């Protein structure tokens, strides 16, 4: 019953909002370039179906590529930091600087360096840059939070550095890594969209570009359709990462039990 309510209640709210929206637009005759009716958004979506889907695919692929790259890089760096305090002290400040500098501010530079002819690579890099830090910090925290007695046990039984990392540290850091990935996955999408805006229209081919382009033409219904797709993409990314977390932790971690 609780599960049914969990799904039914938000759907009911959505139906009420969309109904009220549709009615209000018709009742007060709001111009479509200010606020299109939900029915107009659906029509715009169907009319631009193939171009919106192409844009969705582009945004999706770039976000995923950036995100996976970020996870790989963050994992390697976090492991490196956990093995050498010297490396951590030398490099960590730069990881922080990279994170606190807003991606919109770095975007023009990256776009110039990589070149507009390789726009997708530049966007991937920007999406990855923003997703990198949360994965790095949470994985670092996980690698440091390992039970020191377990590490002692490893030493007692002659475990090599690699064995300790593989058998004890990495599994123990897994919940932290997955939590960092959930944050990282969602903000990789934000990074991708921001980077597309920074790249400007005419070069990128993703949903953010479709939003810029359609709003310039006052095709606000198409803008809304692209926006809805972006929101859905974000929710799906989050849901998939949450599912992955649940699958990997459900047998043993408190966060996934109950």
């Amino acid at each position, binding site marked *: 019953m609780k599960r049914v309510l969990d799904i039914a209640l938000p759907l009911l709210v959505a139906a009420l909002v969309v109904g009220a929206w549709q009615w209000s637009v018709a009742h007060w005759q709001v111009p479509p370039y200010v606020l299109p009716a939900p029915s107009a958004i659906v029509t715009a979506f169907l009319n631009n179906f193939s171009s919106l889907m192409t844009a969705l695919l582009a945004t999706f692929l770039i976000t995923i590529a950036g995100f996976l790259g970020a996870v790989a890089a963050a994992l390697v760096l976090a492991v490196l930091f956990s093995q050498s305090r010297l490396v951590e002290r030398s490099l960590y400040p730069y990881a922080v600087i990279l994170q606190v500098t807003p991606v919109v501010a770095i975007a023009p530079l990256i776009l110039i360096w990589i070149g507009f002819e390789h726009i997708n690579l530049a966007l991937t890099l920007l999406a990855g840059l923003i997703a990198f830090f949360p994965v790095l910090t949470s994985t670092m925290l996980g690698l440091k939070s390992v*039970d020191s*007695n*377990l590490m*002692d*046990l*490893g*030493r*007692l*039984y*002659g*475990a090599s550095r690699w*064995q300790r990392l593989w*058998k*004890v540290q990495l*599994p*123990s850091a*897994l919940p932290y890594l997955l939590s960092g990935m959930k944050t990282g996955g969602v903000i990789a999408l934000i990074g991708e969209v921001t980077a597309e805006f920074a790249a400007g229209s005419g070069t990128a081919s993703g949903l953010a570009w479709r939003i810029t382009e359609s709003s310039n033409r006052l095709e606000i219904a198409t803008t809304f359709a692209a926006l809805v797709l972006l929101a859905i993409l974000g929710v799906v990314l989050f849901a998939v990462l949450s599912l992955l977390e649940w699958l990997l932790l459900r*047998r*043993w*971690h*408190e966060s996934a*039990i109950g």
Partner: protein
Amino acid sequence: MIRLDAIAKRFPNGVEALHDLSFTVARKEFVSLLGPSGCGKSTALRIAAGLLKPDAGRIDYPDGKPEIGFVFQEPTLMPWADALTNARLPLDLKHMPRGEAETRVAEALARVGLRGFERAYPRELSGGMKMRVSIARALAARPQLLLLDEPFAALDEITRNGLGDDLLRLWREDGLTVLFVTHSISESSYLSQRVLVMTPRPGRIAADIALPPGRDSRLAPATIEAQRKIDDALNKTMAA
């Protein structure tokens, strides 16, 4: 089996944990290291295990370096792995073939009364059962010297007594040498053949009490008599 000679240890925060600590544990002996909390018992045990380096003094193994099993105060299990995988850890680290290791570990789990729980995760086990996995893990490595750091301190009395009896049985069956850190007078009087009473910090041995035979139960007159002796020695140490 193991001899600690004039061991001293000071921690980086300035606390002097051990000063001139010397004792010997002979082969197949069951020795308790008893003292008030904070007297450096655990530090001494970690030094004996080679987990901690002393600032001064020597550790000798007259019969050669033994295979050591260590049981912590907490079960110290890997929450992401089942009982079998947890107890297999020492063998995995030694690259023992999987099949051989699993047979050995299944046997160790059965000996501590956990047959049928091989695939259970730590969170599915009670405190006592988790401690049993921890003991099975120490046994799986077939140690000659078993070091235990207040292993039953966090358990209820019924569980603690059961585990104590199991430990005695394993010690007899395997011909183990046991060094058992505890702050329980009754536990040490029943389990061990000899009790080393430590002074408050900085810890060293204040009394070395050999316990007479005939302590077949926790309430046997010989056990009660042993308790009185240990209690006297402890009181003298605390008063000094």
